[in-house]
């Protein structure tokens, strides 16, 4: 059974059709990249998968059950890390929030926090406040909080979009390592074509202003480039270059 399935999901917002009937399935352990021009509904699709948005038609189901609202099994990484963290809590405190929500007894929290901080390489910064950290580190804190939730599914909404190129690349590699280690299933929204191909096992391309002839779901493409991926050799791989060329026009380029 697929871990997540979109069954002819349509979404209307403010009287406009954002997403025309869309159907696809996600298997456990898959890394799905979602690309498309701005305003094509990729974030809305992600929010529907997380239970923040209820589809106007069709349904999203997780392990066969229709999603009716957010669940602790689904973690959501927001693009705006600066506003998704509690500025009055330290790094430790921010991660603790996920454990408090899950009802983890106070005595067990410290050990789990330090374990998760170790995984994202923030062990040395446990006592700092978010404003004392760089953007890349703040985003790591948010990812750590999501990992502490121990979710099945990780939803990421352009998580590295606001970071500089160097930080973005190192976080991409770290994310791939984490996903493999923890066996996570990921839906990753981005407007960066290379990022989508580099990270994904499959790339879902959406188009804006769907019509019955041209539905939202423009293409679903398998990325067969082998793991582990590497910033240099993967991006020089013939398949990478071919996919990049094939997908280029889905981002609104003509």
């Amino acid at each position, binding site marked *: 059974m697929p871990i997540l399935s979109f069954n002819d999901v349509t979404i209307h917002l403010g009287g406009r059709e954002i997403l025309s009937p869309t159907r696809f399935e996600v298997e456990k352990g898959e890394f799905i990249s979602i690309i498309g021009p701005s305003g094509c509904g990729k974030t809305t699709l992600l929010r529907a998968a997380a239970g923040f948005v209820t589809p106007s038609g069709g349904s999203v189901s997780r392990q066969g059950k229709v999603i009716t609202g*957010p669940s602790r099994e689904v973690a959501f990484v927001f693009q705006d890390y600066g506003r998704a963290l509690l500025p009055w809590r330290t790094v430790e405190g921010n991660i603790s929030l996920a454990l408090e929500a899950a009802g983890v007894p106070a005595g067990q929290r410290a050990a789990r926090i330090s374990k998760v901080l170790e995984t994202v390489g923030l062990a040395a910064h446990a006592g700092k406040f978010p404003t004392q950290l760089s953007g890349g580190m703040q985003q790591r804190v948010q990812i750590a909080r999501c990992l502490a939730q121990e979710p099945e599914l990780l939803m990421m909404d352009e998580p590295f979009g606001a970071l500089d190129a160097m930080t973005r690349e190192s976080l991409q590699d770290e994310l791939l390592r984490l996903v493999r280690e923890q066996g996570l299933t990921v839906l990753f929204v981005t407007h960066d074509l290379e990022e989508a191909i580099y990270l994904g096992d499959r790339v879902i391309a959406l188009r804006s202003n769907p019509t019955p002839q041209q539905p939202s779901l423009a293409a679903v493409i398998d990325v067969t480039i082998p793991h582990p991926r590497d910033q240099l050799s993967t991006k020089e791989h013939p398949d990478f270059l071919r996919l990049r060329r094939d997908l280029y026009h889905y981002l609104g380029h003509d």
Partner: protein
Amino acid sequence: MLATLLRWLRPFVFPAILIGAFELYTRRVAAYSDTLAPPSAAVRAFVDALFQGDILSATGFTLMSAGIGLALAFVAGAGLGIVLGLSPRAARMSFFSIEVFRPIPSVALIPLAMLVFGFGVSMEVSVVAFATFWPILILTQAAARQVEPILLEVSQALQLSYFQQVWKITLPSMLPRLFVALRQGVAIALVVAVTVEIVANPHGMGYAIMIAQQSMEPALMLAWLFWIGIVGYVVNELALLLQRCMAQRMGGRP
């Protein structure tokens, strides 16, 4: 060294010139005036009053009344503001009552307060409390509604219970704005307390300045005016300092 000293002295140049000019005017042109006195005489009158203990006792009375009134208003105003901010239904129900009572000028309540409480601390406290209650209520209510929307989605994603959300997210993120409300309350409380003493209550700094004026002691009157200005400045600066500390502690960017 000299340059730093000069820079430090710069803001005092203009007030010094003004005081000097006033001194000159009252000594030469208005030397036999019953209504004006030179600043030097005001300083002498101030020192006399200080040694007689008038300054301390009157200042103590005014600050105490303003403080008690503000404390009552803060507890009631912030408490009710939180409830109205969290519950749109309660806010709709109370909107009309608030808009009817709020525009009443607080000093118009002095006759009523005199009838109910007579002269003394209680009547002054009640008028101060009425005057400061409304801005605190309105600002608190707004603060409860202006919680960062992404934090509320984080709370949803983590499945915090309603009380967890209020306690761990809404209240802490309101705290800096609560201190803004408190600071505004401080400024209003002092003005209203002195006004009540000038108009009706035979205690405190406002009464002292009235008595000095009515007994034709312009030097003493100016001394009180100057002192009330200093007290107002110090109290407001302290409140501002408290507000800034709180904003920084709760995540304002340094």
